[in-house]
């Protein structure tokens, strides 16, 4: 299957990432050069501790490369200040965390509205409606007024996905989104991601879930901080 000619949404150019550790410098990512096209569904796989999450953090601007360049949706992330990155992230990236990270004191609906309040692009009176629509999409309309502690892990993760879509970002980044879920629940989340992929969102995901990885259009294997394999089922067109 081939993708029509699409723009690059993510570009990594000769990216290195070092961390100081116990008096020495540990290089976590070595010379990563990588392009991701808009609409791709990329699964990043590999053994634990090999740099997968670090790579994800670089794509969201949560972390900066030691050397090299990271360009996401046209923005050179390492050149942006912390506040600018925060603002940019709100409108361009939706993040789904492994541990859901819903704010415990807010209802599911309020958690979904929160990014819209931060980004403040959508008029106030429309935010609640949009949040309800998103929760409907993930099958949680009836749980909208519940607190995270009152719903299951799977429901929390689906709410987190709805939250990630709040400002309709072009890029969704997920770090082990099914890592804390049982198989059945993971399957329901997997369906959601497949649906997002069909809607043309660019998805980049770290996962140990074989099924989820197989559903991706591209599988990147990271070992010892390097791209060990880059299996794009859409390449070669």
């Amino acid at each position, binding site marked *: 299957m081939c993708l029509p000619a699409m723009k690059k949404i993510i570009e990594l150019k000769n990216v290195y990432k070092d961390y100081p550790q116990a008096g020495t410098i540990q290089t976590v990512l070595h010379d990563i050069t990588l392009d991701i096209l808009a609409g791709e569904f990329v699964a990043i796989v590999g053994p634990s501790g090999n740099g997968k999450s670090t790579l994800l*953090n670089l794509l969201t601007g949560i972390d900066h490369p030691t050397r090299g360049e990271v360009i996401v949706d046209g923005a050179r992330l390492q050149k942006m200040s*912390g*506040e600018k990155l*925060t*603002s940019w992230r709100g*409108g361009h990236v939706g*993040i789904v965390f492994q541990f859901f990270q819903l704010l415990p004191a807010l209802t599911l609906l*309020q958690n979904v509205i929160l990014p819209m309040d931060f980004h403040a692009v959508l008029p106030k009176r429309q935010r609640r409606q949009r949040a309800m629509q998103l929760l409907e999409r993930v099958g949680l309309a009836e749980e909208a007024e519940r607190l995270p502690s009152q719903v299951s892990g799977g429901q929390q993760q689906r709410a987190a996905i709805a*939250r990630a879509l*709040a400002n309709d970002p072009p890029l969704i980044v997920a770090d082990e989104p099914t890592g804390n879920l049982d198989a059945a629940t993971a399957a329901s989340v997997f369906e959601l991601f497949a649906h997002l992929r069909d809607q043309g969102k660019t998805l980049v995901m770290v996962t140990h879930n074989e099924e989820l990885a197989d559903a991706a259009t591209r599988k990147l294997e990271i070992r010892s901080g390097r791209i060990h394999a880059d299996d794009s089922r859409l390449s070669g067109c």
Partner: protein
Amino acid sequence: MHTLWNKIWADLWLVKARTALAISSIAAGVFCVGTLFGMIDLQLAKMDAAHRQSQPSHINLILGNSADNSLLGKIEAVEGVAGIDTMTPLTVRYRLPGQSDWNMGTLIIRPDYSAQQFDRTTLLAGSWPSGKHIAVERLSADYAGLRIGDRVEVETLNGTQALTLGGIVRHPFVKPPNFGGQLHFFAASALAAEFGQPADTFRQALVNITLPYSTDRVRAVAKDIRVLLAEHKIGVNVTLLQDPDKHWGRPIFAGINGVLQIMALASLALACVLIFNTLSAHITQQTDQIGVMKALGGSTITIAKLYLTETLLMATAAVALAVPPSLAAAHFSSCGLLNLFNIDCGVFDISNRAVAFMLLGGLLAPLLAALVPILRGASMTVRVAIASYGLGSGFGARRFDRWVERIGARFLPTLYAAALGNLFRRKGRLLLTQSVLIIAGAMFLILMSLIASVNLTLDNEMARSRYAVRLGFANDQSEQKVTEVAMSVAGSRRVEIWQRLPIDISKGDAALRQQGSLGAQLFALPAATAMYRPLIEQGRWLEAADAGRRVLVLSADTAALNGIEVGDTVDVRLETSTQKWKVIGFYRWLAGSNYTVEPVYAPMETVRDITGRGEAASFALLDAPIGTLAEEADYVRALKQKFEDNHIKLDVYTTQARLEQRRFARNQFNPLIGTLLGLASMIAAVGGIGLSGTLSIGVLQRIREIGVLRAIGASSKAIFRLFLLEGLLHGIVAWALSVPLAFFAAEPIAGELGKTMLGMQLDYAFDLVAVVYWLVIVIALSWLASSWPAHKAANLTIRESLGH
């Protein structure tokens, strides 16, 4: 901010303990500020208002003998005199309804109650004295339980008479009976003759000078009046000068108020320390939420505003809670203190300044205290905020940490070694929690040392007074007769006679300014006196060889005030003659500037040579083997009876029994020391609240650690003991640090407190027993503070803990 209002509300409501802790901390500080500043403002304002209302005399002369009313015109003619009023205080023996014993009291006679000019007596209930109807001063009425209509038996020249209480009055210048003052009654001039007071005479002159008022002018006019009176053979025992606008008690409050203000601000500062601590922990606990909000697009300013709003809401609640009780406390506390000065505090009043301070301090101070942890938290990067590595790290990096770990490993079981390590894990928070407890401890120990120093000072002063009783006579008596009567009382071992005379001292052309608020008097005593020796600060005390020499011993404070050195010569006017005298020494005056006459000591032999007043006795100092207050009371009763039987009238103001005087002197400090101890207790309570908060937050932060401990076999009891021990260690460390701090700070601080608040220069004593008391208190406080958090920790399940 729309959705974030829900987060703000949830943060405040869902963790009620933390919110309550923060609100109560701020409220405690605001309460202290409002109460203390309110007290200060209300006291001073009401004191001065009451003072002005009484039309205070500028010069109040208490005469040594009665003066004829014909002198009034001459006194009024003295340059600078604007007006004169008179009063006659008499010492009387009275018996209250149902009593068998006679007591000494004061009867004041005023010529015309409806036309008083100065130092006005105010009618509170009933009617003015007339005929055989007398009035009673309100403090006396309260103390003795007297009411209008009661009959009081008094001894007159012709036997006893029952006089009816027709009114209750307030007089601006009475010593409260609680502090050793006599009961005061008021009578019309028609009764004067019954008590041997000649008609148309007076014993107290109340004089006002022409404006403008100045202390130099009033002193000069007072001196001129004394000269005039001396020419008419009228002696002046006491000269009291009053500022027309400021109550005479102001200096007493000045020192106290300064200290109270500092304490109020200190309590607010301590509350802010707690806020800092609490909010730091709150932010730490919400680190991952901050990270998520930032990942979702929340800016640093938005997040900072969120937590500042939470702080502001808590501060507002605290202010709302604290203001009403604080206003009430300020009013009622100041009423209590004003009552000591016989001032009616009137209707409920508030200090606007105190309200402003409470609002400003209560809202601004917590915001400022919260700013650092909030900004620190809000400006965290997403990566730092959401990173989570195991159960937490940080301890062990420094040499100190490893030393603590070695101590724990060597001396404590593993679990309790963990408690020791946990104590030092977050050093910043440890310091903040400790600081409140250390300050509370140091303050407690300093105050206990202040009390010990007061007691030591009074004991030392008593040791310098080798007499058991000092009898003062309303009029000078024959030395021989006094000695005979005194020695006839069982127990009397020795009698020494002193004389008291009015004195004017000047150096060059300038009259000496005295520290004593009632002026100075000459106390003439045998040069080789065996009965009394004050603490000599410079020079020397009187010696046998001084008999016949013109030498003086002055108070050190007066000497300093007037730039007098030992060896200087001063001009002394005694009765009508002025001569040069040499200053041979300075004594430390225990009473300072309190409401009392300042003694100037001189050899009686010399004074008698000059005045020709052979064997006059103003005082008799008696030595007797007295050990207890009860023995002293019996002895004094016997003496009074004997002297009354011999028709010698004692002066209630100058008759003193040593042990009773010590008790009255000590009583005067109790309200003040009680206030300070109350404040120390409040600070200790704040420290306890802070400790409880720190430990509760520690439980929350180490919740996963608790789960791991349980998973590897720690019982609920062990978990409970772990947190309890950590709390106790907090207390013990605070105790260990507060003791040396107090030890070094106590002497200068107690000395300063003694001078400013009590008007005394204290002999210092550090209270070692209080160190033990503080240890017991801090252990109890720590136990209480840690019980609840320890209980919470012990009741967490593994699932709850590890799932957090």
